[in-house]
């Protein structure tokens, strides 16, 4: 066992759906009719006599991920049966991988460059989905929908290298970025779930597992709750027991599922219905060759081709959607201006709205329209920012909006001077203070002019005029 030193120790087990057209072991489609059990056959229903046949595309997708995470790749792909009885299991065993995972000993970097170890990456099939008609605890029965049964999943297990809920969230975010770049995960509809192992120093690192946290935003919430629960308990001299808990997203709490001394025994054996697939050097080479551009490739390209700062390039490339938007915008707008706007303003507005780029409608066309106006000094930065905020909520024609709202920048000096004179006259006290040596007092006048022009003037220009007028 590792010797821990951090105050908080977190390890994750993440399941992500691979975005293949067909299921892992049969040719049923992974997308299509949502009518329950419409996308099923004898194999994904586990009918007697049916046999699995491996989806080669899913293997390619999983290999892409192993390569992107710098994993050591197993020369052989071997599937095992993980046996346990549960109503969502079509065969009461899940075809998974055990002894030899497809990839092991990889690395994924967090935003701040910290390296998180990847213990293993393996492939497995998704169980069916259970529908509790009257809610999880109250239902007298469950309905089973096998549409999902047999969908391809990758399981990614990290080393217990994460030291805070924030790092866990960031890890998930970085992982989703990689999955998205690799074009193996549907960022809009794909399911990504995590189980987290959490322990704290005060309890001598008694390990608590939290099951089934959906999505990367939830992970931080669940972990924050669990860490503070463990801290509270230990500070009241209560023992943290090794146990499995579940995350209730609605109530925002974790609760005990089962307390067990030992790990569950799944009685793994090799699934001899499937033959061992050789992962040859040739195959790996081919997959490498066809790998889509990753974030680091984009950074290099942005710096070399568009001459933007590496720091800006890294922030933009951290999100595939943002990077792709930048590439398109930079064709029409000065890349440095584009970079500045995308990485600062767009990211700021998204964060403020607690949205991801793929969750909003905004597209490169609207960004280009907006930045064209900025580039040509038709509108001020200030006005552009406000328009961007509005665009995140709902799309509209930027040019028309500016015309309608009369938001063109005031470039006519005589008109600006008029506003400045007014402001000076209205605020004699500020002028007095300024003349006494309080340079800051002028800011008040500038602010007043900005208000009068509804931000259509640039503060720099206004400042110059006032200085000239005040003498």
């Amino acid at each position, binding site marked *: 066992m590792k010797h821990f030193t951090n105050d908080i120790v977190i390890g994750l087990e993440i399941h992500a759906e691979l975005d293949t057209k067909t299921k892992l072991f049969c040719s049923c489609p992974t997308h299509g009719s949502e009518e329950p059990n419409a996308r099923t056959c*004898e194999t994904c*229903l*586990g*009918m*007697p*006599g*049916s*046999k*699995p*046949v*491996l989806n080669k595309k899913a293997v390619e997708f999983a290999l892409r991920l192993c390569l992107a995470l710098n994993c050591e790749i197993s020369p052989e792909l071997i599937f095992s*049966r993980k*046996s346990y*009885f*549960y*109503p969502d299991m*079509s*065969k*009461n*065993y899940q075809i998974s991988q055990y002894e030899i995972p497809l990839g092991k000993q990889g690395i994924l970097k967090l935003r701040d460059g910290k390296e998180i170890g990847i213990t293993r990456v393996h492939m497995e099939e998704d169980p069916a989905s259970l529908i509790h008609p009257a809610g999880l605890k109250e239902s007298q*029965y469950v309905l*089973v929908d096998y549409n999902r049964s047999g969908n391809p999943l990758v399981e990614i297990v990290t080393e217990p290298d994460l030291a805070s809920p924030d790092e866990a969230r960031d890890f998930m975010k970085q992982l989703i970025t990689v999955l998205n770049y690799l074009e193996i995960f549907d960022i809009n509809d794909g399911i990504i779930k995590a189980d987290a192992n959490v322990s704290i120093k005060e309890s001598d690192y008694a390990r608590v597992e939290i099951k089934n946290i959906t999505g990367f935003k939830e992970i931080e919430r669940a972990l924050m709750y669990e860490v503070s629960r463990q801290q509270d308990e230990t500070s009241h001299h209560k023992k943290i027991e090794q146990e499995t808990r579940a995350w209730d997203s609605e109530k925002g709490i974790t609760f005990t599922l089962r307390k067990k001394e030992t*790990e569950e*025994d799944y*009685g*793994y*054996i*090799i*699934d*001899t*219905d*499937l*033959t061992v697939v050789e992962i040859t050097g040739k195959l790996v080479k081919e997959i490498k060759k066809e790998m889509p551009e990753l974030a680091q490739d984009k950074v290099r390209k942005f710096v070399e081709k568009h001459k933007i700062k590496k720091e800006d390039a890294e922030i933009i490339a951290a999100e595939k959607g943002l990077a792709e938007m930048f590439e398109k915008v930079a064709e029409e707008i000065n890349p440095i201006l584009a970079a500045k706007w995308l990485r600062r303003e767009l990211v700021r507005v998204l964060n403020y709205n607690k949205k991801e780029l793929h969750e909003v409608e905004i597209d490169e066309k609207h960004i280009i329209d907006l930045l064209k106006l900025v580039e040509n000094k038709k509108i001020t930065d200030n006005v552009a920012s406000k328009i961007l905020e509005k665009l995140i909520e709902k799309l509209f024609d930027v040019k028309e909006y500016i015309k309608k709202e009369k938001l063109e920048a005031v470039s006519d000096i005589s008109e600006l001077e008029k506003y400045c004179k007014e402001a000076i006259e209205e605020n004699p006290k500020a002028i007095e203070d300024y003349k006494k040596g309080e340079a800051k007092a002028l800011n008040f006048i500038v602010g007043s002019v900005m208000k009068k022009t509804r931000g259509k003037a640039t503060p720099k220009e206004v400042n110059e005029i006032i200085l000239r007028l005040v003498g």
Partner: protein
Amino acid sequence: MESVHDFIKKVKDGEIDIVEHTYRLIEECKEINKEHNYLNTISEEQALDSAREIKIQLKQNKDIKNKKLLGVAVSAKDAICVRDVETTAGSKILQNYKPLFDAFVIQRVKEEGGIIIGKTSQDEFGFGGFSVNVGKGFKIPKNPFDSERSCGGSSGGAAGLTQKLSNHIALGESTGGSIVEPASFCGVYGLCPTYGRVSRYGLIDFSNSMDKIGSIGKTIEDAALLMNVISGYDKKDSTSLNVKTDDYEKYLKKPIRGMKIGIIKEAFGQGVEREVEKNVCNGIEELEEEGAKAEEISLELPIKYGIATYYMIATSEASTNLAKFCGMRYGAVEKLEGSFNEYFTKVRSNNFGDEAKRRIILGTFARMAGYRDAFYLKAMKVRTLMINEYKKAFKKFDALISPTASILPPRFEDIEKLTPLQHYMIDIMTVSPNVAGLPHLNVPVGFEKNLPIGMLLIADHLQEGKLIQLGSAVEHGK
């Protein structure tokens, strides 16, 4: 003895009215079943439909005369899925289950004009060597020569029916000897091919790494003919071999002069009934008379560790294969109450037989953390060593020979006295070639006390042709 060959010719030439014939044949099956219980299900309607279709096509001069099995009655072991025909693998837990699809072999038989007449009785899921471990409520098939005795297993119904019914070939299935052993007890030819030669698609699994579908025929010609129809690559079975198929019929009556056969030393002597040994030796002599060269060879590993290795792998795999039967999607159901765990337990407790439960427990134990290295994984390694030992022998020999069973078909009253382990030992001759995935053939070599005795021929992977060559030499030497 007449093979189905002449029958097919008569069907093609219009000398036999296939519909009339099928009516009579179904009646005969019912009659045989009254005493012998060879068929769990007689698929009367489907069989007659097939016969009528053939008759119409013949009338319309449709080009069906090249069909290899035209009008031939074919039975399927109950573990083989036949669309819309109750398929239970001999278990109460699958009662009333009608598959939605045909097994690959059934498809092939139908394509070649064969008529599926029903599902033959067996030990539940193939768990036995005497067909006495039938599922709850199923009837035990009886030896065609003596109703007080076993017809062998687990493809007991298939072998017995083949002995009793003319113009019929059976689809059997073997995991540890379930084709050749009942064939031996019923005096017919049982051909179990190389693992992967015949698709397992649609076969209800016992032990995936060892299950093989094969043919049982009254004559070696019949067994070879059906093997020709069912062998070949199937993309729906990942373990199916993508290797060109041989024409097995061309090995029939092919001279065997100069072929080398190895007599497995450890398979004779102690523990083998005198009458069995005598007749198998006669069979070897016949081969020598036809020009084969026989020599003794020691194969210690297969005889010594065969049973242990086989039961370790077979029960481990079986215990996972049987997990899916829980009363949720198909087969037996019980009153819905309690948690899912309680419900599954009730369904499985009430509907699995004792031997099925024993093997689930054995297999689950062997897979447990802490034991799997010592049992399951060790057995997998021994399997590799056994294959190597056989491979070495096949550098020198075309085929290896032993008795198929060390005893004459036993009486039911004697079987009852056996402990489970003694019961398992019946497979001692046959498990090892099954563990190694080697093709093997039962050749009837004689009778003692009016009971048949069989000789087991084993060949290297994909050398089924040699088995047929040698088997037909014994037959024609008679």
